[in-house]
């Protein structure tokens, strides 16, 4: 109990130094939490995709397309419940800086396969029945202040030209992590226009989406589909949407790995800083620890005092950091809500924060503790005065 009192008061006796050290840890933990949350977002796209959806694309590369004629043949593969298809459109609205995903899809089958895009029935019907209609997610709509019936123009990048759409529906995501910054329109509209302008690019799709009943069928159906088009002009590669997204994510994944590494580096740096502070502190108190020893206090008492102070400082900083991570995360979410699907601090991040808080305290405390415990009393006393 009294050891508690000692290290508490010792920590408080150097308010400025202790305060600055705590602040340093707080910021480090905050940075760690935010960096990890950003890096973690990358996998949300993967986690949210259903295991009962397969994606079929050109076996050579994502940039090559598949003939629309595959549609009927895929539908006949056993285990296939429904099929949809589409193209990445890559259109730009006003400014490339605010890029959002947009895809040409077959409305009816697509919406059936993606129940997580929640759209009212009349909006759905309005969309399906308007060849130039499009739907957007709620976040995107509010970003630009779009209302139903608005006319939108996208500048095509993959498919050059000005493309006009009429907003027929605004959907919301079933879950927080559902992508709401996206625009869908009729594949038919794209295809018919291409027939007139660039006929050789018509009747091609970028991907087929296949709905299956049970996740267990995924492997078999994938194999069957790919075998169907073996040795044809455009061979296919079918994988679960999850695997597909992982492949997609791995392109930018390297950046996320870098962010993750940086987050650990932050922790290591703060560990060094706290260790230095604790070493300084303990050196200053060598005389005090020698006095305790003189009176008959033992190594473990001294260890408790040094370690306690180190842990007190690091855990206080850690808790402040954790408490700040949530409001800071909200702020980030508000600022970056347009770019990121959601900004939720994961529980695992908090556990890691706590773990690192304790680890920093221990690592920073070890060296000074050993020093303080080992110091010979006569030498320690000699430093006083």
């Amino acid at each position, binding site marked *: 109990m*009294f050891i508690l*009192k*000692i290290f508490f008061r010792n920590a408080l006796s150097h308010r400025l130094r202790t305060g600055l050290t705590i602040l340093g840890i707080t910021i480090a933990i905050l940075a760690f939490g935010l960096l990890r949350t950003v890096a973690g977002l990358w996998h949300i796209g993967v986690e949210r995709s259903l295991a009962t959806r397969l994606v079929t694309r050109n076996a050579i590369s994502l940039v090559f397309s598949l003939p629309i004629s595959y549609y009927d043949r895929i539908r006949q593969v056993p285990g296939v419940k429904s099929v949809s298809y589409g193209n990445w459109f890559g259109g730009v609205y006003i400014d490339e800086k605010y890029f959002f995903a947009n895809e040409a899809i077959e409305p009816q089958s697509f919406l059936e396969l993606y129940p997580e895009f929640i759209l009212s029935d009349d909006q759905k019907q309005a969309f399906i029945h308007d060849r130039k209609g499009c739907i957007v997610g709620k976040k995107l709509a509010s970003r630009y202040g779009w209302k139903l019936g608005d006319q939108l123009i996208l500048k095509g990048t993959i498919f050059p030209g000005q493309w006009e759409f009429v907003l027929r529906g605004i959907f919301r995501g079933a879950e927080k992590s559902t992508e709401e910054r996206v625009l869908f329109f009729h594949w038919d509209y794209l295809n018919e226009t291409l027939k007139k302008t660039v006929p050789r690019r018509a009747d091609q799709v970028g991907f087929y989406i296949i709905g299956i009943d049970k996740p267990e069928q995924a492997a078999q159906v994938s194999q069957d589909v790919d075998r169907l088009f073996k040795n044809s002009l455009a061979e296919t590669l079918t994988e679960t949407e999850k695997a597909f997204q992982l492949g997609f994510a791995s392109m930018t994944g390297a950046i996320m790995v870098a962010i993750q590494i940086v987050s650990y580096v932050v922790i290591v740096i703060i560990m060094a800083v706290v260790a230095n502070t604790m070493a300084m502190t303990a050196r200053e108190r060598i*005389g005090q620890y020698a*006095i305790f020893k*003189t*009176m*008959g206090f033992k190594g473990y008492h001294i260890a408790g005092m040094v370690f306690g102070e180190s842990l007190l400082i690091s855990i206080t900083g850690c808790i402040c950091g954790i408490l700040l991570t949530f409001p800071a995360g909200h702020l980030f979410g508000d600022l970056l809500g347009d770019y990121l699907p959601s900004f939720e601090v994961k529980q695992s991040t908090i556990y890691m924060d706590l773990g690192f808080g304790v680890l920093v305290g221990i690592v920073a405390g070890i060296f000074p503790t050993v020093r303080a415990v080992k110091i010979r*009393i006569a030498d320690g006393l000699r430093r006083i005065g």
Partner: protein
Amino acid sequence: MDNSQPQHTVVSIEGVAKSYWRGGQVVPVLEDISLDIERGEFLALMGPSGSGKSTLLNLIAGIDSVDAGSIIVDGVNIVGLDESELADWRAAHVGFIFQFYNLIPVLTAFENVELPLLLTSLSRRERREHVQAALSVVSLQDRMDHYPSQLSGGQQQRVAIARAIVSDPSILVADEPTGDLDRISAGEILGLMGRLNSEFGKTIIMVTHDPRAAEKAHTIRYLEKGVMVDVHP
């Protein structure tokens, strides 16, 4: 253990030698020191700077270890004790008074005096009583909630004395207790130590440079380059 020690001898030093390593060289500090101190004695240890007074005091108090010889205090040869045993022994048998008071700055006078008692099995209430008694001996009951920084040097030294006597040790060791005080405060401290010796029968071993301090003592011993000399040179 040596039980041949006569009852009235509380400290018995036999053939003690001590040297330090400095820059790869052995520096002898004490050579073949022998000394008996009787119970109730007030002994002053004098000698030039560097003669080994503090070293000898530290050896008697069990905070440094000898190279050769034996030191028997209250029937226990402390040379044979390991570090942990020695810590327990110090807590029970030795009270320390230093030149720079050596109070813990973050603790009040009361808490400083209470420290040695935290290593005993005394209850909170008993500790409080002991601390108050010790503080009243040094006439500082009214300052018990003050921190060392709020006390004068003389007052701090009195708190240190209260801390040294609170657990009722067999011997009090004092290393230049007046070395950092003005004449008046020094006089007070010496008066107090004299009282501890005469009224409370405490055995005191005091290192000092101050002839006035030495006058208070019954016996004066001189150290000269690590050797006991009988008369003042």
